[in-house]
């Protein structure tokens, strides 16, 4: 079984400030890790993913995430946010073999001018 916990349901931040969205996971098997973004009235789109190799992963729109195996975390960061980054962000894990994905409950990022 696997689970995902997004530690903050809402994160308000001012424009050009840095932001970190936290994600912890648990799984009895090896997993792949993903961050998806959902803009208002749109479907989820992939922001970045960790499959293997370097634990620091860079994605679209200036986002990056760091995989920490010992802490079972995959936090998402951006050094300077824009108004357009306002959206819902979902962390997800997918197990190696069965391909079954589990999503967190999401973090609403609101960027204020």
């Amino acid at each position: 079984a696997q689970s995902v916990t997004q530690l903050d349901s809402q994160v308000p931040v001012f424009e050009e400030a840095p932001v970190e969205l936290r994600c912890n996971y648990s799984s009895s098997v090896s997993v792949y890790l993903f961050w998806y973004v959902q803009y208002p009235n749109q479907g989820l789109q992939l922001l970045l993913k960790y499959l293997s190799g370097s634990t620091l992963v860079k994605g679209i729109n200036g986002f990056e995430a760091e995989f920490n195996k010992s802490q079972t975390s995959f936090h998402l960061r951006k050094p300077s946010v824009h108004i357009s980054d306002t959206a819902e962000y979902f962390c997800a894990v997918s197990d190696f073999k069965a391909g079954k994905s589990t999503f967190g409950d999401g973090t609403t990022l609101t960027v204020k001018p």
Partner: protein
Amino acid sequence: EAGVVQSPRYKIIEKKQPVAFWCNPISGHNTLYWYRQNLGQGPELLIRYENEEAVDDSQLPKDRFSAERLKGVDSTLKIQPAELGDSAVYLCASSLSWTGNTEAFFGQGTRLTVV
């Protein structure tokens, strides 16, 4: 390249009525998923297809939900009869394969309101 297309975008029905959702995945994608997203929560898998075969339907409430993917392309998800608790966004996604490292592409979803 066209993305995953879902219809309708919105649907309001009375409880006990039937409802159906349609999904057209990205061309060439063998794997198709139906998710349900309740308000304030992440998507939860209802069913996964590999071509026309349902390979994971363990979370599908089979007493009232059914799905099909004829010819391994388009898919429909049906609820009969609908209950108030079925109000949610129903998301369809597709991917090239079922392996865990494959990106899923999502449609915009169908927002169902049962009154």
